[in-house]
């Protein structure tokens, strides 16, 4: 009886749990957005003073404050902004542009860059980690682990500047910066290479170490030893026995990287002039532009939540499959 019921009940349970997690994350996001409004309030100056011009009188700035709705209590402004959220209305910037307009191409651009970097990170770190794990303590293992530590310690901007100098300004192989087209996206795909690499390299350092460690852990499992004793070739043991077991840890590592990729994007986008959300966010903080900051936070928060949820699901599924 019980055995038979499992296939139908498991998806339902999974769905319920997913639903609960989504609700939890949504609440968390709302709290985060409230924090954004509260924090901007604590910063010295406000959007009215930030966008006012020299020579404006206190009355002029007060008028700006009124026009921007800053004379309302912060709670009310937060509530106004939140109530627009379900309809996709992210409010208006301090300079009168719709926040959705400011983010409509910038956010997809950042997702494209971040996604590309994540994909590259996943591929490179898994391949390098496996290669190193094939012969633990061997020459390859020492080289990969050693350089992973070195690369991990490099900040994105150092990598970015080095890449611009070597692959663009000195050699002329790739464009130095990204320039956007009439549709707001990078004018050519080659412009994506350098920023993606600048984001990927430090993250590969981090993830190679995780992959390598996870594989080493898994290699000590009894069933792996059995496979080795059965005389299976090392690469087959790696791909069919060790790697699947290490997947949950590797996925969790990559999920953590997503956050760091988004954070690193702010720096990398500036250096490569990449038309992403990083530059929008940086200037919005300077302008104390709460609706814009909150808009960026809401979208990035949603994406981060989605990625973490996906990582949880992958972990559950792979772990479940092995149980």
């Amino acid at each position, binding site marked *: 009886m019980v055995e038979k019921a499992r296939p139908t009940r498991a998806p339902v349970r999974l769905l319920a749990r997913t639903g609960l997690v989504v609700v939890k994350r949504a609440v968390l996001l709302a709290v985060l957005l409230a924090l954004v409004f509260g924090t901007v309030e604590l910063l010295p100056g406000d959007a009215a003073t930030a966008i006012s011009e020299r020579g404006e009188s206190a009355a*002029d700035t007060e008028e700006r404050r009124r026009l921007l709705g800053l004379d309302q209590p912060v709670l009310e402004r937060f509530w106004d902004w939140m109530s627009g959220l379900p309809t996709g209305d992210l409010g208006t910037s301090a300079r009168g542009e719709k926040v959705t307009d400011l983010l409509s191409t910038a956010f997809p651009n950042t997702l494209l860059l971040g996604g590309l970097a994540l994909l590259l990170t996943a591929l490179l770190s898994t391949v390098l980690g496996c290669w190193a794990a094939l012969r633990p303590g061997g020459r390859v293992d020492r080289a990969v682990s050693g350089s992973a530590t070195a690369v991990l310690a490099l900040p994105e901007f150092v990598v970015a500047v080095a890449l611009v100098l070597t692959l663009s300004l000195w050699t002329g192989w790739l464009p130095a910066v990204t320039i956007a087209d009439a549709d707001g996206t990078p004018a050519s795909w080659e412009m994506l290479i350098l920023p993606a690499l600048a984001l990927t390299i430090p993250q590969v350092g981090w993830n190679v170490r995780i992959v390598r460690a996870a594989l080493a852990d898994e290699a000590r499992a009894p069933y792996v030893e059995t496979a080795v004793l059965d005389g299976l070739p090392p690469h087959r043991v790696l791909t069919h026995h060790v790697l699947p077991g290490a997947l949950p840890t590797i996925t969790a590592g990559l999920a953590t990287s997503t956050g760091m990729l988004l954070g690193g994007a702010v720096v990398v986008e500036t250096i490569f*002039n990449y038309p992403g959300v990083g*530059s929008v966010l*940086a200037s919005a903080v300077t302008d104390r532009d709460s609706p814009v900051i909150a808009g960026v936070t809401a979208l990035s928060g949603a994406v981060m939540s989605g990625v973490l949820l996906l990582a949880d699901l992958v972990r559950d599924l792979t772990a479940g499959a092995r149980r």
Partner: protein
Amino acid sequence: MLWVGGAIGAGALLTACGGADDEEPTGSATGDSAKPRKGGTLRVGALGRAGAITRDPHGTQANESDYLILSLIYDTLTVPGTKPNIEPRLAASWKASDDLKTWRFTIAKGAKFHDGSAVTAEDIVFSLKRLRATPAGASRLPGIQEKNISAEGTDTVVLVSDYANAELPLLARLTTFVIPKGTTDKDIAKAPGTGPFKLDWFRGGNARLVRNDDWYGGDVYLDAIEVKIFESPQAMASALLADQIDVASNVGAVAARTAESRKDIQTVRRPNDMAMPIVMRTADGPFADAKVREALRLAVDREAMVKQVLSGYGTVANDILGTGDPAYDKSLPQRTRDLDKARELLKEAGFDTSKTYELYTTEDISGLAESATLFATQVREAGVKVKVVKQESGTFWDKTWLKGDLYTTYWGTNDSVVFFASKTMVSDSGQNEAGWKNETFDTAYEEAIGTAGAVERTALLKQLQRIEYDSSGYLLWGMADGIDLAGSAVHGLPTLPGYGRVQLEQAWLAR
């Protein structure tokens, strides 16, 4: 935050181009005699922040890229010039009443919007009233109430100032963009302009503009201009070096130094672009005694400041703001370093040299914080201990500006002595940065702006500058050049400081 802009009146300052040596590169970005060639697309990089984008010609434009785009599409009544510092644009001519209060601007013949309709006085009145109604309106059109903007016939606009003001045409530069009457805020981005270029597309701060063949203002050579927004000068310099853009507008001294070794890159120096004076509070506090301020002016090593803070891309100044004004008084003795005299003055004033004084600064513009640091090192040699405190921009403008005893400030409009007098030095001026009150100065100012005759006016302006030189709260050690970098094919770039750099209608490409 800051409205930077302006022009100079010194034709002699037309800049030399080229790198470190005197050898000219293949061409010259400015002032060359070759016959302009028609055609081509000029790719211009300009600074801007993606979150601060605005499309409103009467909005607060923080982005140089936005302002560049707007000023190519829309025309202002007058524009900055070389000599004189005001040139006609949409207003072909102007005339004042005897009391210098009523000004009549006549519209240029053949001026048309990009949709083909003729520009009327009603359009200009609508635009000026729209500008006046913004929160920045009172400072952009000082002394002009909304009700005192009116049309006279179809081609004349009348502005009546609350007080005599010989500088009104100067104030009509930079922000008086004209749009068709009745344009709503919702449609502002689509409003046709009258300028040398028409908008092809705009997206995320980048834009493509195409030539307006019907422009009333003369021949335009370029087929199109593409404006690219850059968040950092470094990225913009990289783009120029990698030939992704043709001009890096206002890219700064650091980039110019990097590009010095490249023979195919031209450096355009625009003198008198930026003033970064040190403000010493005169109203009260440790610097209220004029002798103390004089001592600091003698303790600073101006040559060293220009060399180190501006990488040599600048000129030594003499504590008078408005260095690009044709009426700037060059006959006043240049202050140079005199540490003995400085110590003596400090002693006379009973200045407490045992204390450490804080100098507030920001990193708003390149070189500002560096100027504070070097200044602190220099005045220490005269026995004044100064500690530099770097503030985040928002904090600085909120807490320190107009209030602090000692801080750095910066100004981008440097072609008018009267501009500074009216904004920052007259007793009741709104941005009296040093809290300076000087009745003789106030009288001299009022007389100067109420005088139409050129000779008398120049004499009054000299008097004004003498008082400022002797006792104002400013220490102006030097003037930074504006620096653009350009590829070798680019010709006809403007050499004006400030927002004079946006006048690209004369630019052309030799390729």
